[in-house]
């Protein structure tokens, strides 16, 4: 079993790409799947470039949403990234 930590460098998985759709939303295209990226999902995925660590991503999101509860940001982003990892929509080093 492989899981993300604050020091991991997540990036988009092989064969996964983000595409804008007509209404301005983004979708994530996967092997045999599609995810509609709602709310902050697209921003989080954009930050997964293989260079930023999970800790960097959390910092960036906190800066974007300073009034949100820190613990909640951390928990929700962590669970979102792990869900993406389970589908191999993200990968990490």
């Amino acid at each position, binding site marked *: *079993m*492989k*899981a*993300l930590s604050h020091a991991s460098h997540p990036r988009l*998985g*092989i*064969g*996964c*790409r983000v*595409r804008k759709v007509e209404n301005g939303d983004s*979708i994530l*295209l996967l*092997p*045999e*799947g*599609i995810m509609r990226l709602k709310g902050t999902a697209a921003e989080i995925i954009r930050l997964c470039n293989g260079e930023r660590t999970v800790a960097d991503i959390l910092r960036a999101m906190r800066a974007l949403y300073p009034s949100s509860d820190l613990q909640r940001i951390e928990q929700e982003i962590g669970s979102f990234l*792990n869900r993406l*990892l*389970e*589908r*191999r929509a993200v990968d990490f080093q």
Partner: protein
Amino acid sequence: MEVTHRPRHCVYCSNPLELKARAEELPTETWARVFEEGAELGMFHVHFTGGEPLARNDLVRLVSLAHSLRLYTNLIISGIALNEKKLTALIEVGLDHLQMSFQDGEERFADWIAGAPVHARKLALAGLICESSGLAFTVNLVVHRHNLDRLDSMISLAESLGPQRIEIANVQYYGWALKNREWLLPTREQLKQSLAVIEQAQERLQGQIKIDFVTPDYYATFPKPWMAGWDASSCSCILRAASCPVMLLQ
């Protein structure tokens, strides 16, 4: 898109018993129109399947056409007709994902069910695919009564090929598989044991390889959603584009 019904010679092929002849296959320009119209309607993915899509000489062109419309391209093959040159050409024109089937973990059994000595060749191809950067790879393990007891070693083989995804697909009882059903359908006990093997592998490989599983129709409480429900939002175009359980992704 079932671009051809030219063979795969499998006893568990889900293609109809009476296949469309080569002469009835849609020409390149008609597929181009199907892709264009689909993209306009909001289609995001094109899955090239068959038959064996590599039997078509224009497959690289078809993938290229779909890719130029920003469609996600997925190719489902047996692997026999693939070579390094063709693989490189497919990647160059934008193939996103390739799915190749394996019949067993052991060569003698795999070649026996395939009816041809192809297992070693498929292994070599999987090595090439894995080295190709940017191409997502699914290993499809076709399971039935005669190999389900070896699922553990089949998963080990698949794992060693370095895919992002493993699909454990019980034979789907349509076409030839329906004709051979009595011979292929696993026992309930076999199925039960295989579920435990899968669960264990899923846990062990979580975050490394995504494992999907397709239950055999006859052991499910309800008819399963095709492709785990993914098909609720997709449509199939079969050769003459006659049959379309309707989609669409809004």
